[in-house]
């Protein structure tokens, strides 16, 4: 078995050669991409260095409260991302809290269950395990929830006359919105279904690659990856279901009406 190989700063500079080459091409060919390349590259370096520092400190402190705090900050940012990715969204507090809430609920339940019953670090919230796991689950749930809500809202907005025609024939709000609900759920589930189908054939998942590079036996890495895919799939499904049905409930009322007044288009 190979062991972990540490990288020096010089290694990183060496690895950036090809990216620098791209910037040179951009200059020569007047593609005007060099500025964007440079700024996003610098952003990545700064963000990752900071995350490295923060994680190092958090791992050193190893406190349940600090771990919880970091998890909450992750939820706040992911919730904001869900909100920003929707063309039309629920107005007021609902616009943020429904997406963020479903994601938090699904992500937390799945992460805590996995930590407590399958991975079982001591104590169960050990940040080295809890935070990366929660991050992977949250990131995928975030993508699913934002796709599901975006599809639902644009579909209800577009299909309004058809939905109202069904309501007028005496159908319930759930029946009338069902085609839009189905479309939204399918759209929210698609990324994780595609990821599961393609994984290992098209590309090795990042986490598994990381484990193999750090010297873990590939079969062990595969087991971890399967566990992660189950967790991600489960959490994404729960989050999408919660968010989409919650939003259908909010965009209709007890008198079986469509309430587009509770939805707003993105202003920018």
């Amino acid at each position, binding site marked *: 078995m190979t062991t972990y190989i540490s990288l020096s700063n010089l290694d990183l500079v060496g690895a950036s050669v090809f990216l620098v080459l791209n910037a040179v091409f951009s200059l020569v060919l007047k593609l005007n991409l060099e500025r964007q390349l440079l700024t996003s590259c610098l952003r990545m370096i700064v963000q990752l260095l900071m995350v490295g520092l923060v994680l190092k400190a958090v791992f050193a402190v190893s406190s349940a409260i600090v771990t919880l705090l970091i998890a909450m900050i992750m939820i706040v940012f992911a919730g904001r991302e869900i909100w920003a990715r929707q063309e039309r969204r629920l107005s007021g507090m609902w616009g943020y809290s429904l997406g963020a809430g479903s994601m938090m609920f699904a992500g937390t339940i799945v992460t805590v269950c996995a930590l407590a019953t399958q991975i079982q670090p001591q104590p169960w919230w050990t940040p080295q395990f809890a935070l990366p796991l929660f991050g992977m689950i949250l990131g995928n749930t975030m993508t699913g929830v934002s796709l599901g809500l975006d599809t639902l809202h644009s579909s209800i907005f577009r299909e309004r*006359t058809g*939905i109202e025609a*069904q*309501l*007028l024939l*005496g159908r319930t709000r759930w029946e009338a919105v069902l085609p839009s609900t189905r479309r939204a759920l399918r759209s929210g589930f698609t990324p994780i279904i595609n990821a599961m189908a393609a994984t290992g054939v098209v590309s090795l998942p990042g986490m598994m690659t990381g484990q193999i590079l750090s010297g873990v036996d590939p079969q062990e890495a595969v087991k971890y990856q399967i566990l992660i895919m189950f967790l991600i799939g489960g959490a994404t499904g729960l989050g999408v279901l919660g968010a989409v049905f919650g939003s259908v409930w909010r965009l209709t009322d007890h008198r079986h*009406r469509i309430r587009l007044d509770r939805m707003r288009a993105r202003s920018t």
Partner: protein
Amino acid sequence: MLEIAELETRHVGPISMNVSGGECVAILGPSGSGKSLLLRAIADLDPNAGRVALNGQIREEMPACEWRRKVAFVPAETGWWADRVSDHFADTDDVGDLLAAMKLSDAMEWEVSRLSTGERHRLGIVRALQTKPRALLLDEPTASLDGDMTTAVEELIRHLLAGDVSVLIVTHDEEQARRIAGRSMRMSDGQLTPEAGAAS
């Protein structure tokens, strides 16, 4: 009888009026005066306040779905949600006579995307009558129809009136109001007033 008391919705009301069984009341008025909003409010499609009842049964005391089967509303723009016309009808045998009256006997086989505006509207009326409603709210039912079809729709309305259905019709056509409605009301800025010099 359709009873409406102190009905208020966005930009409209308060409005009080009754439409007896077998009576047709026409609502005239400029575009944007709130005629369609009034019909939507009666059908309970938009949030509204006030008292609405059919034959003594208060709307809020029955599920909204049941109310809309009894008080059918055909909006000016008919909605469709499936590809084939027949998918929009619960039982296609049930509406054979209505389809024949609307000259749409073959329509069940058609694709929705190929329907003309007039065909959509006539099918919308037939569809709304599937549930055998006791009151009918029509929003410009003949706006996109030619003379023959307008006559056919008016015949159908007379037939429903003979069966004691209450009919409330929004129209821009004052001649039509005189032909089929017992009385007319005029909507202006969300307020409804009896039409001066209306027949009967």
